[in-house]
C-alpha cells in the first residue's frame, strides 16, 4: 500500500518508515514540512498518509492544515494525523467533511505497533481511527446531555469503542462479548440517540461522531 509520511523529527520519521515498511507499506515519500506535504499528497495521491500535526515552517498546526487542504483537493484522501496531544477542535475539523478516511491519534499509540497498523489500515479503507482521548473529550463535553445519560454503562463502553472507529468484531473482542451482543447494544444506542440505523460500519461510526461533535 502506498503511503506518504510527514514528520519533522528525523528519528521519529525513520521509526515510522521502519514500522510501515515492515508491514508491507510502500513509503512513496517522507517529508518534513507543511508545504512539501501538501505537494506530495496532491502529487502521489497515496492510499494513506501519516501526518504529524506540528510541522515547520510555522511549528504550529501546519500538518493538520495541509492535510485538510489536501482533502479538499483530493476528496476522501485517507489521512491519519498523529500528535503529541489531542485536541477536540482538531478532531472536529478533520471530521467536518463527513467523508471518512480520517484518523487522529496520539503519537504514543505508535508504540503499540499492531494497533497502530490496524488504525492505518482502517483509515486507508475509508474508516476512522479516533484516539480514545479524543472520544473521552467529546463524551465529557456531552456529559450533561439527556440521551447520553440514558445509556447503560455497557452501552457507553460500546459507544466509545465504536466512536474510535472499531468494527463490531473488534469491539466484541475488546469487551469479551459476542458480536451479536455488540450489535444489540449498537442498535439500542442508535435508538436512544435517535440516529438512523445502518449496517455499514464506516457510516455508522460517522453518524456517531457527527452526533458527538454537534
Amino acid at each position, binding site marked *: 500500500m502506498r503511503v506518504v509520511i510527514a514528520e519533522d523529527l528525523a528519528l521519529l520519521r525513520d521509526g515510522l518508515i521502519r514500522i510501515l515498511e515492515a508491514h508491507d507499506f510502500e513509503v512513496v515519500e517522507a517529508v518534513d514540512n507543511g508545504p512539501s506535504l501538501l505537494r506530495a499528497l496532491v502529487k502521489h495521491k497515496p492510499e494513506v498518509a501519516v501526518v504529524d500535526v506540528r510541522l515547520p515552517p510555522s511549528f504550529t498546526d501546519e500538518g493538520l492544515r495541509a492535510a485538510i487542504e489536501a482533502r479538499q*483537493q483530493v476528496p476522501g484522501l485517507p489521512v491519519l494525523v498523529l500528535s503529541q*496531544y489531542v485536541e477536540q477542535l482538531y478532531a472536529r475539523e478533520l471530521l467536518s467533511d463527513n467523508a471518512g478516511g480520517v484518523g487522529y491519534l496520539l503519537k504514543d499509540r505508535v508504540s503499540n505497533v499492531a494497533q497502530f497498523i490496524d488504525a492505518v489500515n482502517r483509515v486507508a479503507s475509508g474508516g476512522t481511527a479516533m484516539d480514545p482521548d479524543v472520544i473521552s473529550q467529546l463524551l465529557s463535553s456531552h456529559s450533561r446531555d439527556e440521551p447520553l445519560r440514558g445509556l447503560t454503562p455497557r452501552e457507553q463502553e460500546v459507544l466509545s469503542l465504536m466512536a474510535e472507529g472499531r468494527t463490531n468484531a473488534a469491539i466484541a473482542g475488546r469487551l469479551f462479548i459476542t458480536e451479536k451482543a455488540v450489535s444489540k447494544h449498537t442498535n439500542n444506542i442508535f435508538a436512544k440517540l435517535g440516529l438512523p440505523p445502518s449496517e455499514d460500519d464506516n457510516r455508522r461510526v460517522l453518524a456517531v461522531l457527527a452526533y458527538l461533535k454537534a
Partner: protein
Amino acid sequence: MSAAKTRPPGRFALLGWAFLFIFVAAQSLVLFTVQVYMTALLWIGLFVPIFIGVTSVVRRFTNWHRRWAGKLLGAPIPEPYLVDAAPTRLARLRGRLKDPATWRDLLWLFVNGTLGLTIFCLVVTFFIGVLWYLAFPLVWGVSPKGVFKEQYGLFTIDTQFEAFYTVPIGILLAFVWWKLAPALMRAYARVTRSLLAPTERSLLKQRVTQLAESRAETVDTQAAELRRIERDLHDGAQARLVALGMSLGLADDVVDRDPAAAKELLAEARTATTLALSELRDLVRGIHPPILADRGLDGAVRALALASPLPSDVEIDIPGRLPAPVESAAYFVVAESITNVIKHAQATKLWIRLEYQPGRLSMLVGDDGHGGADAGGGTGLRGIERRLAAFDGTLVVNSPVGGPTVLVMELPCELSSPKISPSSETG
C-alpha cells in the same frame, strides 16, 4: 461627561451648598488651627495618636469635598494619600508626616477657610441683595413712612411708585448673579481640585507601590509554579523514565535465558513510556497549552468552550495576535473562570466574549448559575486577579445572589501582528 449619569448641581442647589459651606468653611479653619497646634506639639509623645486622629478626620473632611468638587466638575478627584498600613504608631506618624498630601490638605483647609469662605459669602449675600431689591416695593409699602427713605444713597424714595425703581436694578443684579454664582462655585471647585487632587509625584508613588506589590505577587506565583513543575517532573516523567531504563536493562539481561520474561518486561517498558508521555502532556498543557501556540487565543478559547460540559456561546473579536504572555494570561484566566462556573455555579449555560479595543483586551465570562460569587472569597477568583495584576489587568465580579454571574476581565495590551488566515490563500 454623560449628562444622564451625574448632572452637576443647578444654581439653586449651588446656592444651598454655598450657604452650608459658610459653616463648613468655619469648621475647616478650626481644623486648620488644631492641626497646626498638634504638629507644633508633636514633640510631646501624647500628641502622636492625637495628630494621627486629627489627620484622619481631616482626610475624611477633604474626601467629602473631593467628592463634591468632583461631581461639580464632572470628573472624580482621586484620593492622593499614600498607603499607610504601617504596623506601629510611630511608623504611621512618619508616613503621615512624609506624605505631601497631609500638608496640601492643611493648605487647603486654610484656603477653604479664607478664599472659600469669601466666595460662599459673596454668592449668598449677592442673592440676598437680589431678593431685597426685588422685594423692596413691597417692603416699602408695608413699612411706616420714612423708614426706608433712601436706597443706599443712590436716590431718595418718596412714593410707592418710586419704590419700584429698585426692581430693574434687582433684575439686573439677578442676571449678574445668575451668571456669576455657578462660575464662582466652579472656580472654588477648581481651587479645591488643584490642592486636593494627587500631584504627579504622589500618583507616581502610588503607582510604584502598586507595581512593587504586583511584582512581588507575580514572582511568588512563578516560583510556586516552577516548584510545582519540578515536583511533577521529579515524581512523574523522571521516575517513569528510570523505571523504563530498569525494565529495558532487565529485559536485556534475561532475553537469552527467558524470552517470555523479557517480553513481559518490554511490555512494562512500553506502559512506562505511555504513562510518562501522558504526564508530560498534562504538564505542558499547564505551562503553555499547545493549541494556544497553534491557534492563538481565539482557537484556544473556542477549544476550551468545546471541552466544557455546558453549552457555551462564544464570541471573539480580536483582529490579530496578542503578545504571547498576554495570550497565555488571558487563556488561563478564561480557563479558570470556566472551571469556576462548572465547579460552583450549577449553571445550565455559559457565554464568553473576547473583544480587543485599542489598548486593551476585554474578556467576559457569564453563567446563569446561582450567583453569589465573591472576589474576596474563592481562591479561583484570587488566582485570576493575581494573573491579571501581573499585566495591570483588572477583574470585576458581578454576581448577585440568584445569578447570573458575570466576570469582566481586562488586560491592557497591544496587538503584535495582524491576523494570518489559515493557509487558504495557497488553494
